[in-house]
């Protein structure tokens, strides 16, 4: 490997590579995982990651894969999925929604504190009504910004509410003591 190639490799890793959406071709392989054809290369089972999952679902998506030595290799970053074709957008969006499956909180009925570090929150979500048990609620039931509520239950399931001010008054009053 000559000096020139090595220097180029260094740049590939160190710099942010924004992917040209018109050249990307994602497809589902037999195992239902996403693979990619890009600039003459085929990458099997690519890893798609929302770099800022709480602020944007469709911008700054990292596309990476594991090489033969199981080492992380980033192909590049999609700045905005809106630049993809409709079917490509749909494919990626479906996969990301799946990977980041996180029901949205629509209503908060009640919160009970068992005074031992756990709270039981009765909520209505996009996936139905559920009472979730939260451990160490000071850390796992909190505001990530002025509006965004984020909850992680004892099993590791995640829930969020993008804007608590849009909740009904009763839900807000129930939340008020805890956030």
């Amino acid at each position, binding site marked *: 490997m000559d000096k020139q190639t090595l220097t180029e490799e*260094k740049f590939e890793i160190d710099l942010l590579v924004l992917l040209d959406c018109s050249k990307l071709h994602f497809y589902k392989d037999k195992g239902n*995982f996403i693979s990619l054809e890009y600039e003459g290369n085929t990458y099997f089972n690519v890893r798609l990651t929302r770099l800022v999952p709480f602020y944007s679902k469709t911008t700054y998506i990292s596309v990476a894969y594991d090489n033969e*030595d199981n080492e992380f290799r980033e192909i590049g970053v999609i700045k905005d999925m809106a630049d993809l074709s409709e079917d490509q957008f749909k494919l990626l969006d*479906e996969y990301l929604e799946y990977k*980041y*499956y996180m029901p949205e909180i629509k209503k908060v009925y009640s919160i009970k*504190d068992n*005074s*031992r570090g756990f709270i039981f929150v009765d909520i209505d979500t996009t996936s139905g009504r559920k009472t979730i048990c939260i451990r160490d609620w000071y850390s796992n039931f909190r505001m990530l910004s002025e509006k965004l509520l984020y909850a992680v239950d004892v099993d590791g399931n995640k829930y969020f509410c993008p804007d608590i001010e849009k909740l009904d008054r009763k839900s807000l009053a129930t939340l008020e003591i805890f956030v």
Partner: protein
Amino acid sequence: MNLLLSAPKGHELSEFLFSLPFNLYGKAQKVNGHLCVTRGEIIVYIDGEEVDRYNFNDFDEYACEQLIGCSMMVGRINDRSQRCICAFSQDSFIAFAEVCKIINHYLTTGILVEQSDIDEPKCPKCGLPLDGYSECPYCASKIKTFTKLFGRVKPYKGVFAIAILCTVLSEVLNVVSPYINRILIDDYVQPQNTSHWLGFGVLCGAMFLILGINTFLDWLNLKCSYYVSLNLGQDLRQDVFNKTLELSMNSISKKTAGDLINRVSNDANKLQSFLTDNGKNAVVRILSLLIVMVIIFVMNWKLALLAIIPIPVVLVVVKRLYNVIHMYYSRVWRFSNAHSKLLHDALNGIRVVKTCGTEEAEIEKYRTASEKWAKAASKAEIVWNLIWPFCDFMLTVGNYFVLYFGSLMILQRIPAFGVLTLGELIQFTTYVGMLYTPLRWLMQLPRQLADVSVSASKVFEILEENTDVRDDAECVDLDIQGDITFDHVFFGYKVYNPVLKDISCKIEKGKMYGIVGHSGVGKSTMINLILRLYDVTQGSVSIDGVDIRKISQKSLRSQVGVVLQETYLFEGTVLENITYAKPDASFDEIVQAAKIAHAHEFITKLPDGYNTRVGNKGYTLSGGERQRIAIARAILHNPKIIILDEATASLDTETEKQIQEGLNELCKGRTTIAIAHRLSTLSHADNLIVLDKGRLAETGTHDELMRKKGVYYSLVMAQRKTTKMREVTGNPNYVH
């Protein structure tokens, strides 16, 4: 763990070996799915309809992958191609992982386990996670726990009985005082009778006597209570600490260090104060409640009813109001905590704040946090000041009824209630007032009982835990020669995630072996198994042909020396740290060991030589110096087997060279097993064991493996490439 939870629509549970519901599929849409396992097949159902069917042998391995918001079960072929079988929310992860483990076990051994042997992850009763507890601390039988707890008072029962007796006598005397008051008022104060000074004097004397006796009883009570409390606390802490050190790494790693420290100190302390304070109070308060009740009912049952009737309703209301207050104060605590964190952050990072010129932003953040805290505190105070007087009034509302109707009785306005003297009314209201103390205590009791029973369950769980790595009844003290054999070893820290798979290899005595592989491949795990910090899941590890489960742990570990990447030095002197594993070593031996480890030179330069204190985990010394002390410790230990786990990884090349000389001396003629990230460190090893994805990929000398061009070759090449790239880019921090 139950893996037969529910059957798909139109099917019976009996048709399957395991059947687990799952709730996600395809596009993160909610579905009503079932993953069913028969003796050889996996069938996936959605809404009762079969959508996929796989033979166990369709894949090489089954695994559960945790994504961000959900998990999925996948089947893999050759580690490269995989297929998603189904997906589910995180609560089902452990059940699916267990199914994967069982099928994988079938694929490697041909044996299909039909019953899962792992514990339920959640309490079936309350649904809270068990977190490694065998029994839910919140649902454990309270009576059983408290019986065990009070059983610990046994060695001090005599002194404890004196403390109880003192408290009971003191309470009895308290009941007598209002009676004397009544006589004083009715017979001497109200009639303004000045001709009976003797009687008045006797009564006053009796009052003083009661006061004196009460003071003595209180003193004796306090002395006895402290004696019991301190001894009991010491016993508990010592027992919990002893047991914690006896437990296997497997049990210990289920709990965090913080949790264990909590159990040794906080939980044990909570039990200590509960037993001596509340345990004694329980007897006295209940007794006092009964005595006072009987007295007031005997005095006037109608007035007594007026005093008691509102109490149950009031208690319910007051308890609810207390909960509201509690919520407001916990909110204040949260904001105060956020405020402290921010303060801590800004002041610790003041250089960053200054260099980035973000002072104003930080001031604004601080102002907001401080304001939120102040607002929450003010709100809580308002709520407290509104609720508390009301609660107290409500609690003692019965007394107002008694005063109103009692006064009417003195004035003889309600003949149906009878007649009362002023002295009797004062005596009565004093008794009613005495009812409220035990009642207030009783109101707090359920909360305290719940709190203490959780602490007690946690403490007793440790005290009663059977360690899973224990000495066999027929274990032997072996004089180790140094031959180690791994025979088809399988092991995983979590049952569903095997780290080592089917490892078979021989390590010959007196030779140096290097274990290499990517990080997380199981190198340190092999070492943990040799040290028997864990027991293998399957297969065996033997030393000189004896299964290590048949060798006493003390004998095994006294003949194995370990030098780790991060040396832990205990609070104490250099001398104490070197002699840690051999406290009876002579000073000559110690200096000799330090010289071999190249530690003597720097120790002599320390202000107090070998008596220099290495406080704060030894961070007053450099990494190289700490490592040399560890090597001296290992040399003094004179082990038959040496384990070097990245012993020189955190040192610079110059220090590594110096340390290497010490290590070479240490390893001479001993079986040595070394793990090193820098493969060049291991190139002179007699043999290399190469691990890949938890399996033994290849073994051989450096030259043999390089010629083979297998896994080791690519590891070496990858590392050389990184080194070259560092040269080209001139960036020593560039990490491949």
